[in-house]
């Protein structure tokens, strides 16, 4: 992309696209195997990406035909004329366009590395310049990240999570984002709060985080230290599970042949450039320690 300053990333389950900066993620569903994401700017133009895990022998043309047939059926229900064109087939990528009450330009391909079939399309109304947006956005759709990592990107937060960690829970709220990933007993929590200057007006980051995470920190014997984080105010959190209840919990995990995640490590920092507070925490076993790797890959501005 030539104009990277005016572009941003959206990504879910490792499927990432570079879109104009006023676009954002508006709908997500599914998991790593089958899922969907939509990004738009609230107007009529939108990027939609659908992915599904497939076996080795898959006929892409029939997959695309099935997709277009589904669209045709829906258009018929609305009594709208539906037209489509299969534009080209090069390097295993099928390009298509369709026209009904809206029009779209898209691509379908199979990624040999992650064994997923991806359908990506930019759609808009008849008066929208879909083709120019599609030509700038569709080539940027990536179906997998760097080996061993999966990219998640939304609302100016870009994070890479190690493969094996599955999204357990997420909150995408205005001013607050939380992504919780789990791999067996290990947990990775990424949080982002907006309007840091207001949140930290009468308090320090340390006190603010303590207050915010009071419930999550309860099972741990923890300490928080101030650090300088890339020339920004930051804190480091270190803790260990403590208390009788937690010991029982660990004992139960041992009995069920799971290594208990007894350690908590985390960082939180204020990004003055984006006026946000970021936090990355890892609740892990003594063998699993991915925090530093994740931290290096979190882009806050």
């Amino acid at each position, binding site marked *: 992309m030539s104009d990277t300053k005016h572009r941003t990333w959206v990504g879910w389950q490792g499927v990432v696209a570079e879109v104009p900066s006023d676009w954002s993620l508006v709908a997500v569903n599914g998991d790593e195997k089958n899922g969907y994401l939509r990004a738009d700017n609230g107007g009529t133009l939108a990027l939609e990406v659908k992915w599904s895990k497939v076996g080795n022998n898959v006929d892409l043309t029939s997959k695309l035909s099935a997709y277009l047939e589904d669209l045709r059926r829906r258009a018929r229900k609305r009594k709208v004329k539906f037209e489509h064109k299969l534009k080209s087939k090069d390097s295993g990528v099928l390009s298509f366009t369709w026209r009904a009450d809206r029009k779209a330009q898209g691509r379908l391909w199979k990624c040999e590395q992650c064994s997923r079939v991806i359908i990506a399309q930019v759609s808009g109304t008849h008066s929208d310049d879909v083709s120019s947006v599609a030509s700038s956005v569709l080539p940027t759709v990536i179906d997998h990240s760097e080996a061993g990592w999966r990219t998640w990107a939304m609302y100016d937060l870009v994070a890479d999570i190690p493969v094996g960690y599955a999204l357990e829970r997420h909150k995408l709220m*205005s*001013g607050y984002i939380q992504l919780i990933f789990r791999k067996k007993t290990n947990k990775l929590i990424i949080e982002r709060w907006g309007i840091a200057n207001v949140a930290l007006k009468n308090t320090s980051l340390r006190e603010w985080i303590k207050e915010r995470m009071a419930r999550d920190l309860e099972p741990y014997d923890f300490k928080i230290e101030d650090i300088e984080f890339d020339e920004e105010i930051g804190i480091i959190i270190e803790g260990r599970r403590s208390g009788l209840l937690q010991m029982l919990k660990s004992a139960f995990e041992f009995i069920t042949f799971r290594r208990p995640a007894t350690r908590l490590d985390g960082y939180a920092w204020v990004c003055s450039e984006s006026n946000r507070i970021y936090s990355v925490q890892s609740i892990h076993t003594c063998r699993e320690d991915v925090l530093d790797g994740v931290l290096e890959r979190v882009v806050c501005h």
Partner: protein
Amino acid sequence: MGAVYNVVSQYLPFLRKKPKLSRDQALSARPIRNPLLQWERNENGEIRLRVPLRRDRLARILGRLLRAPEYKEILLDEVGSDIWELCDGNHTVQSIVANACRKYKLTRRECEASVGTYLKMLTERNLLGFQLGGRRKK
């Protein structure tokens, strides 16, 4: 049927359908503060609203019995105060969103959602109204 509905809804306001606005219409609406309210900024930069309570006969009797104050006070936080100040009938929702985006470095989508919810909440409490289309008459 429509004429009957119009007549009935005139007398039974709960039957009135809420007007549906498109996104563009909503963004171009101009929020206006309820002129019956008094408000002031305190030393922390936060706005304190004084909302007059009901003054009908029953409210006056109950107020006297329970020694209720004449006003209800609402303290807006810093962000809310900034938005409130712009609800003067001259700024559109879009310009308020743009202003908040710039000041607090929020993404446009986040800001639209927050400002929209906040303005809706103020409207539901009768603290604000909206002017649709055109400029405010002076």
